[in-house]
């Protein structure tokens, strides 16, 4: 009984920063037993696959080939010297640059609007959240129809208004933007829910104080109270949105297959082609490791830059 209690206390205090003077005490063996199930899951589903991929990236392993040899950093060198890699990286970043501001500002706008609705707030919340729950592959088909070059309703509308129809998925200059619209449509509802949670947590007193202080017009209220107090939520939303955008795959795979003329090729799609179409596993693994590194750097940077400015308490 006593050991369990001590172990629990040790486990609880282990994460706290220990003062420099006191020597770090290794947790009791019992604490390790408590941590075992979670550690096991983390190891098998997260850490081990990453390690295996990292190891594979140093080999010339190809799916189904009998002999495999270590090739050092050859895979990385060939990936980094391949203009294709830089092309897909650029496309992915461009897509992310479209999607993140669109989905964050869109989500924020939806959240503020939906929160100010009296009756039917729930209905609006559900409606805007629907894209999150929908299967993107199925929805992509709908989008394909909506944005179709000839028969799509959007083009019909443009045509009837006197504009020239746009080949949304056929024009190399247009395709990334069209995909980004779908990405925004899918993410905005999710971001809205996160922002609503943030909005609800803002004390009403602050709005009252703002009213007395003279900031009672909607824009003043928004910039004096709402936006600054959504800071922590904003950070989280931006990080998750950029990660999601960076991982874009299904719309590309279903709608454009990287076309036209490779204008919509993105990293994950390229990895998929390397690994599962051309069966060059080693090279795909190298790209995956680079992709992971990109994501890590991206989220670290964002957290680093914004964190100091958004946590007040």
């Amino acid at each position, binding site marked *: 009984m006593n050991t369990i209690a001590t172990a629990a206390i040790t486990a609880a205090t282990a994460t706290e920063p220990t003062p420099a003077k006191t020597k770090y005490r290794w947790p009791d063996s019992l604490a390790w037993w408590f941590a075992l199930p979670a550690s096991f899951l983390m190891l098998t589903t997260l850490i081990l696959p990453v390690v295996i991929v990292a190891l594979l990236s140093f080999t010339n392993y190809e799916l189904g080939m009998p002999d495999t040899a270590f090739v050092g950093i050859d895979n990385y060198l060939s990936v980094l010297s391949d203009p294709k890699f830089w092309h897909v990286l650029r496309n992915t970043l461009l897509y992310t640059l479209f999607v993140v501001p669109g989905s964050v500002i869109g989500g924020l706008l939806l959240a503020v609007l939906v929160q100010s609705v009296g009756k039917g707030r729930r209905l609006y919340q559900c409606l805007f959240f629907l894209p999150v729950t929908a299967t993107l592959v199925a929805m992509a088909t709908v989008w394909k129809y909506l944005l179709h070059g000839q028969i799509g309703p959007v083009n019909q509308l443009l045509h009837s208004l006197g504009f020239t129809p746009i080949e949304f998925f056929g024009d190399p200059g247009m395709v990334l933007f069209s995909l980004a619209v779908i990405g925004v449509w899918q993410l905005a509802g999710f971001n809205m829910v996160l922002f609503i949670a943030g909005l609800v947590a803002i*004390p009403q*007193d*602050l709005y*009252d*104080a*703002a*009213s*007395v*202080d*003279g*900031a*009672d017009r909607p*824009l*003043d209220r928004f*910039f*004096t*109270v709402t936006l*600054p*107090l959504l*800071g922590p939520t904003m950070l989280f939303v931006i990080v998750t949105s950029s990660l999601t955008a960076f991982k874009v795959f299904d719309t590309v795979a279903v709608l454009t297959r990287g076309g036209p003329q490779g204008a919509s090729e993105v990293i994950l799609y390229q990895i998929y082609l390397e690994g599962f179409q051309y069966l060059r596993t080693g090279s795909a693994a190298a790209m995956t490791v680079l992709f992971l590194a990109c994501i890590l750097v991206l989220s670290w940077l964002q957290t680093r830059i914004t964190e100091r400015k958004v946590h*007040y*308490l």
Partner: protein
Amino acid sequence: MAASVSLAQIEKVYGTKRTLNNVSLDVAAGEFLTLVGPSGCGKSTLLRIIAGLTPHDSGQVHIGERDVTALPARDRNVSMVFQSYALYPHMTVAENIATPLRMQRLPAIARIPLIGRFWPGSRKRRAEIAQEVAAVAAQVEIENLLHSRPAQLSGGQRQRVAVARAMVKQPGVFLMDEPLSNLDARLRVHMRAEISALHQRTGATFIYVTHDQVEAMTLSTRVAVVMDGCIVQVGTPRELYDDPQDIRVARFIGSPEMNTLAITSDSPHRAWLKDASIQLPVQAADTVHMGFRPEHLKLADRSTHHGAHTLSIPALFERMEVLGHDALLFCRHAQAQETIVARAPVADVDQMRSRGNGWDKLTFEIDLAQTFWFNAQGSRLPPATSVCEILPLHKRVS
């Protein structure tokens, strides 16, 4: 500078509940008026209506000579200190205090971060604002905190920042919504003195909401007691204590609360209380309530004979709380079973004990001049000027 406040027939209904019922109140310029009452009585709602934060259903609000009923909070020449202080957590203390002035004096374009400072003329105004902020901060002694964030401050410091933010506008009316209730007891006494000093110094009108009668009694020039959505009585602290017009006021003001005994009478001036010939000092009908303050009860020896103008009350002792100089005696009326609390100097209690009087049965004496009489509805009965009969002894206490 100071503005008067006048409320006329304010009504407020939340759903089916009538929160404020025909409330009228006049506050003179420069006065310190406290709205006091138990929680949920509507005092905060009333304050928010004056501030313009809560719309009311009917009635008028005047501040100074202006009818502000339809004006938003920012145009009402009022400042408010909130119970939670409501400081903007993302701003420094200086920015918090500057906010009302920024909103007043800088056009929207000049308030935009970064580019706003290039707006012509904004530099000069910003300098002015910074100067005024520093001056106000010095007045409440927080100059050295100007660059900290609210999260780094203690409760008392936050309170000062909130007061400074209210002061910087130099409003005609200060509204305070339980500003001291989040502080510990010592600090509360200290801040009470500071708020009182602030009132003296600024000369502005203060309307102060609290549920704490000590705050109400010590700070205010006048107190309005709010009960169940109505203002029951407005008066100086002395008036409320000496001359309560309603049994609820009588019970609310004073600590421990006033004792009340329900007495049934069968005709005017004829009521009955055991062992005592009472001159019933009021015109009574049916049930009347007799009230008397714990501090007015005297411990009596059973042997001593009381005069015609005193009433003796037999009581069964239950427990005692020693407060230091005084002690509270918690008793029950010997027949009526109603609780009676008496406040007596500890010395008297000791004297009683030493004389060997029975400790479980006590007799209290009360001067009839120090009793308050209320009718069945709780309204104060005026003392009857006519004859007071001396009644036969009979047990008729209900």
